């Protein structure tokens, strides 16, 4: 059988690191439990003001952002294996995210700050 050689775990290859072994089903289930708990926390804190904790309202959106970023990282890092695959994929994904977030920031600034004269 003809074989080809590819770098193994953690090897540097052309400026980017090679893949590590993917996690197993046990880790995947643990991640799912964490994701479910985070989602439950998001819904719970949404109703804090109605439960008499009106002072929590200003902190809701920052909390949502932090929790959703956590969920995002868990899915992308573990389920999509970006944490374990070649770092080139991660850099490519991060690059597109940075462009999208930059465009979004400009867009929001334009519409909320300039267009409406605020």
């Amino acid at each position: 059988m003809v074989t080809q050689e590819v770098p193994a775990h953690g090897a540097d290859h052309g400026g980017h690191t090679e893949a590590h072994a993917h996690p197993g089903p046990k880790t995947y289930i643990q991640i799912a439990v964490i994701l479910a708990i985070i989602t439950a926390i998001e819904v719970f804190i949404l109703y804090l003001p109605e439960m008499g904790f009106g002072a929590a309202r200003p902190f809701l959106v920052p909390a949502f952002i932090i929790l959703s970023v956590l969920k995002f990282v868990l899915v992308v890092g573990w389920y999509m294996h970006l944490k374990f695959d070649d770092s080139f994929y991660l850099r490519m994904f991060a690059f597109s995210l940075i462009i999208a977030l930059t465009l979004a920031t400009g867009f929001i600034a334009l519409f909320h700050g300039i267009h409406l004269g605020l």
Partner: protein
Amino acid sequence: MATAISEQGHILQPAHDDGHDDGHGDGHGESHAGSMGLDMVKLLMWTFIASECLLFGTLIMSFLAYLGRHEQLAAHGLEAMWKGPLPHEVYDIPYTSVSAFVLLLSSLTMVLALAAAQANQQRQLRIWLVATALLGTVFLGGQFFEFTTFKTHENLWFDTNQFGSTFFLLTGFHGAHVTVGAIWLLSLWLYSLRYGIPPSKARIVEIAGLYWHFVDVVWIVIFTVVYLTPVALQF
């Protein structure tokens, strides 16, 4: 596909022109390493996902553009853009939370399907593939119910106001992606029934999984930005 470790600690994999040990020999799912040592099929999927980030980013920004600005819009004579129900008046967060949970669960079944394919557990692979497609279908059913509720009970549709236009466009687009993903998974299931998906072809499950998880990741953002945030801010 047999693999071995060389003396230098590198993994030895069969090249593309070898005889495949699964008996089908069509090469699908084999590693397509390019000059950078990267799997080109996987790289192509990540390129597609990168472009999708920009697409969904634009749709989400369209939703946010005038959110919570109805008073300012009215001051500029644009009150018709927000005539009709507002987000916090129509959303049913507990219901949407269940939908979000269903989609998160489908990501688990998807990644378990990949693990089964890599371990050559054909029966488990088929179960997890069908489970993922079914969970996606449940999510779509929930979205259909939400859309019809908005239209019939809340009088909210594409042409009602700016919220309706951007909401249905964004979530509808996401639903279309879920539909494509479910069809893709069912086709993989049919393929596995007919030919089987040995570990040497697990790559085709991984590529489908990347797409499915991305759809899930988009929903994580939509759930926070489009559902939770407007309700928290009473927009």
